[in-house]
């Protein structure tokens, strides 16, 4: 009983510490918020089984990211078999925020375009953008999470942002909500 409590405490601490990073990694690969959530939950369930079985997880972060990466790739393969090359939902996760219908339509359209263009970036660039914009992590934190230099984060962030802005312009998106 005491062992189970200890495992649960460790499990919850790891979830609190790494779940956003796991979600960001899965999201950067799939560009699907719901699928990323499924990958995140499945990854943590596997972590629980690992902890419960008594096998020591030496580096939980590396373990979690490896499992999440594999699951995201497996999901991509199975999604490809089901849906061909199109992602299941282009407008996935674009929830209403109480805006007017016309504004909402314009925003959804711009978001769909952003999403399409994000597909053209590398998963590494998308991961940095996700960590920066979805969770508002600063460059030092992203650098720590990804194990790269702060200068490299700035450079990749700037490059990904510029590339995205250029592609949006080239695709006729002149305004954003």
């Amino acid at each position, binding site marked *: 009983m005491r062992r189970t409590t200890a495992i649960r405490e460790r499990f*919850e601490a790891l979830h609190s510490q790494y779940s956003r990073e796991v979600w960001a990694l899965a*999201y950067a690969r799939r560009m699907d918020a719901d699928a990323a959530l499924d990958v995140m*939950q499945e990854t943590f369930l596997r972590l629980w089984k690992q902890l419960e079985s008594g096998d020591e997880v030496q580096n939980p972060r590396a373990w979690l990211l490896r499992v999440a990466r594999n699951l995201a790739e497996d999901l991509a393969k199975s999604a490809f078999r089901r849906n061909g090359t199109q992602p299941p939902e282009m407008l996935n*996760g674009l929830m209403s925020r109480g805006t007017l219908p016309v504004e909402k339509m314009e925003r959804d359209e711009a978001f769909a375009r952003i999403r399409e263009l994000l597909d053209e970036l590398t998963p590494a660039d998308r991961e940095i953008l*996700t960590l920066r914009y979805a*969770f508002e992590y600063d460059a030092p934190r992203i650098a720590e999470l990804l194990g790269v230099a702060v200068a490299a984060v700035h450079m990749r962030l700037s490059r990904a942002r510029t590339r995205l802005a250029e592609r*949006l312009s080239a695709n006729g998106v002149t305004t954003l909500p």
Partner: protein
Amino acid sequence: MTPLPQNPDHLDRAFGAYFQAQVPTPWPAPPVPVETRTAVNAGWSNRTRFTLAASVAALFAFALWVSAGGDPTTATKGDDLLRNGKAEGDGLKKHMPVDPMK
């Protein structure tokens, strides 16, 4: 609506709006593992296995006891069974139906 891409702040805000719209709200709690059910199942499984093993052992012991003759004061010996069950030819004829062709 904001012009693109002249103002990097607006671009940042737009990207922020896009990515934040993707983040699950509220952030999900840790998944609930089914360890309780697993523990119950494990206990049940062990009990089942023990019961099965005990039943097999009892059956085996009974089979040994029977093959060893069991209780000599109450058991019927095979010879007795044969002797008592021996069919007599005449006796059987008495019970045969009469042949209507005769």
